């Protein structure tokens, strides 16, 4: 195909957009509505999971050692714990540090004078944080199997509840996202199909005059892709502003809530939403028009 023919067919694609203004608007609105729902749902679920993950990160396991275990051995065990895949962070609390923290609580400000010696010798421990709270039981089992370990403090209920809720949210969100995307694909494809079907006669005329498949198809495909891109850009812009506004509103009006909960930053939400929406919008616009026109090319 010559360059001028390529430009002509591309020009026709843009022209069709305006020529079939109502159809274009309806298609953009359909794609936009579907993807907007997807954006909103993703933002909500994404934040819910983010908040849960943050709560999970706060769940720790405390490891205490037998009184006769040497400091060197305790530090060696600390290294082993740090090397575990399920562990994200390990904090060592020495006897002195513990006494400095709890001494004033037990004996008042002059705790050093009341107790000539640290009564908490041997209570040094590791505070272990996990990458994934569902892996807590395997870590605890491993810790408890060590001869040097006297006691492991952990909350099984918290870990199980958190990982359970997380799993449920993950399943539900995957399910809803798949359904939303499927509905979007169906609606968008239908809109594109209806739009092209009413122009069957135009396609037939082109074919009778001797137009190649590419010549007939290119304007429709370009039109579908532009509609898809606009249909994706609008909900993205809307979600961007809405998300920004809601975050600002929560931190302004509900400062207590904002201190307790941290929300996903805008960039991180849009690093997923933008490519997904554009791929879905443009991809469906392309595929929908390509496949639908193909059916009418057998003239």
């Amino acid at each position, binding site marked *: 195909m010559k360059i001028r023919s390529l430009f002509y067919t591309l020009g026709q694609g843009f022209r069709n957009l305006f020529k079939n203004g109502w159809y274009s608007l309806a298609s953009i609105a359909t794609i936009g509505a579907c993807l907007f729902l997807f954006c909103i749902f993703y933002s909500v679920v994404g934040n819910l999971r983010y908040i849960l993950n943050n709560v999970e990160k706060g769940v720790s396991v405390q490891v205490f050692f037998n009184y006769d275990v040497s400091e060197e051995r305790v530090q060696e065990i600390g290294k082993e714990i740090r090397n575990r895949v399920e562990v994200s962070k390990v904090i060592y609390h020495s006897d002195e540090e513990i006494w400095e923290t709890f001494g004033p609580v037990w004996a008042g400000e002059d705790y050093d004078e009341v107790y000539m010696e640290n009564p908490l010798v041997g209570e040094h421990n590791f505070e272990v944080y996990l990458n994934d709270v569902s892996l807590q039981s395997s870590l605890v089992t491993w810790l408890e199997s060590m001869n040097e370990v006297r006691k492991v403090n952990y909350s099984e209920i918290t870990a199980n509840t958190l990982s359970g809720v997380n799993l449920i949210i993950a399943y539900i969100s995957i399910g809803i996202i798949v359904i939303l995307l499927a509905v979007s694909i169906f609606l968008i494809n239908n809109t594109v199909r209806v739009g092209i079907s009413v122009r069957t006669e135009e396609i037939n*005329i*082109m074919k009778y005059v*001797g*137009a190649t*498949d590419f010549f007939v198809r290119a304007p429709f495909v370009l039109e579908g892709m532009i509609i898809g891109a606009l249909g994706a850009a609008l909900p993205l812009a809307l979600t961007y502003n809405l998300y920004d506004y809601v975050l600002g509103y929560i931190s302004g009006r509900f400062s207590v809530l904002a201190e307790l909960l941290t929300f996903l930053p805008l960039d991180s939400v849009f690093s997923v939403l933008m490519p997904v929406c554009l791929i879905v919008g443009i991809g469906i616009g392309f595929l929908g028009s390509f496949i639908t026109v193909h059916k009418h090319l057998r003239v």
Partner: protein
Amino acid sequence: MSRKQLLAQKRQEFIEERGIICMNNVSMNYPEAGAPAIDDITLRIDPGEFVFIVGDSGSGKSTMIRLLLRELLPTSGDVCVMGYNTRKLRHSQIPAFRRNIGVVFQDFRLLKDRNVYENVAFAQRIIEVPSREMRRNVPSILAMVGLAGKYRSNVKKLSGGEQQRVALARALVNKPEILLADEPTGNLDPNNAWEIMDLLEEINEQGTTVVVVTHNPEIVNAMKKRVVTMKRGLIVNDEEEGTYVNED
């Protein structure tokens, strides 16, 4: 001699031997219909001929046009147009094949969102004629069909006769070897119908093979051309300077 020249020569020899259009024992059955639309017909049309295909509704005239355009493939037999056996044409070869056939329909089939010039130029764009050449060819063909002053008009605002002239201009602008006209006067009043027929005759005199499907006895009988009469899918009469005998 290049391969292209050799093929052109072979094609020319084939046309001289078997005609620009040849149908050999062609039958066409639509799956949903009981009786065949075309039943074992054999027909030869030579280059430069003007042929009327006549017959009542359902006689198989339009099916014949669709077979010649390679819109349909025959159930059996061979359809050869300009030396091409339509059965052997690949899907990708059909556009180039159709560019040598001009086609005009009863309902004009114009691109309604474009003006007269754009409708005619469309046929030229498809074969990638340079713009400068296009600007020469389109007004020239529009002048030939009597629409020189209307090239900017919206086709929807033209009369039936004018719309058919636009369709004719579009069919002719690429200088096809064959012009197929399926009921070209079906939607026109007698005056416009005659004007279109005069144009078709003029085009034929310039060397284009013209095949007109019609059931207008006045036109057929007045023009004294070859008449192929069809009935229930069969050719029942084929006569030089024939007439349209309506048996009903």
